[in-house]
């Protein structure tokens, strides 16, 4: 399963999500959107808007599933934890 996490370097929920994934040995790619610049940042924002219908973080994409916010129940369900 391909997992990508869109987060912000300042976001407590993003930190919680990373910790949760790390604690369960889940490998994932991550984009810290606020640390990007210019077109790269705009592209990431646009993608988050498309995925979550907003600009809330974190946004976790696991194949076709999208989880907005730190939601342990959903993550456990989708990631098979």
């Amino acid at each position, binding site marked *: 399963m391909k997992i990508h996490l869109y987060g912000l370097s300042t976001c*407590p*929920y993003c930190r919680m999500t990373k910790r949760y994934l790390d604690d369960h040995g889940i490998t994932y790619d991550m984009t810290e959107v606020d640390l990007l610049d210019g077109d790269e940042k705009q592209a990431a924002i646009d993608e988050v808007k498309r995925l979550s219908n907003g600009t*809330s973080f974190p946004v976790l994409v696991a194949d076709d599933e999208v989880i907005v*916010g730190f*939601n*342990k129940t959903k993550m456990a369900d989708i990631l098979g934890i």
Partner: protein
Amino acid sequence: MRRVFFEGTTVDDLKAYMGPFAERLGYKFNTEIEFVDEVLESELVVLERDGDVYCPCRVRVGDPKEDLKIVCPCIPFYLDEFAALRKCWCGLFIREDVEDGADLIGVIEQPEPGTQVDVPVCLVEDLQPGTARHVKVGKVDLAVVRVGEEVFALSNVCRHAFAPLDEGFVDGYALVCPWHGWRYDVRDGTTDHPNADVRTFPAMIRNGEVLVTVPLGRAR
């Protein structure tokens, strides 16, 4: 309280500024103190980097008007959504009537569009009998009117020349436009002029607050 940030601003400074501000809107800091401190520490990082206490869980989009809406506490811009969620998006602030905020931390769920929510708009003591005041819920400008011990809410925009109705005066159950004297019945929004009625919203008094019921999403 005046919003003043300076070099060396602390979490306690943010609490001192934000607490009373949120309280006026019917909110308080989450009961999870460690979580509150963590969020506010993050806001200080954002303050130093970006120049204001933007929400650490949301991203600036580069449009000053839009970015203003994520300056903490952003409650005034999302009164209806937060009323439905009983918290602000990140859970830093929870509604006054929530006893334990732990369960409101984490998940960011959007309420169903069309959900009816009771939005606190002001304290009863700030709305004297026979007066009106302007409030904004979502993108809608409302005039909240008190007649005796009853309260009413209607569009604040006169259908004649778009005058702000709250600047007029209350005469019985009529709200009279300040510019040309058109009279709107605050109970149903009707006026004597054809096709010029304004929309009304249910309003009530509860626990010292004036609440207006709006359909979430459609009020924007």
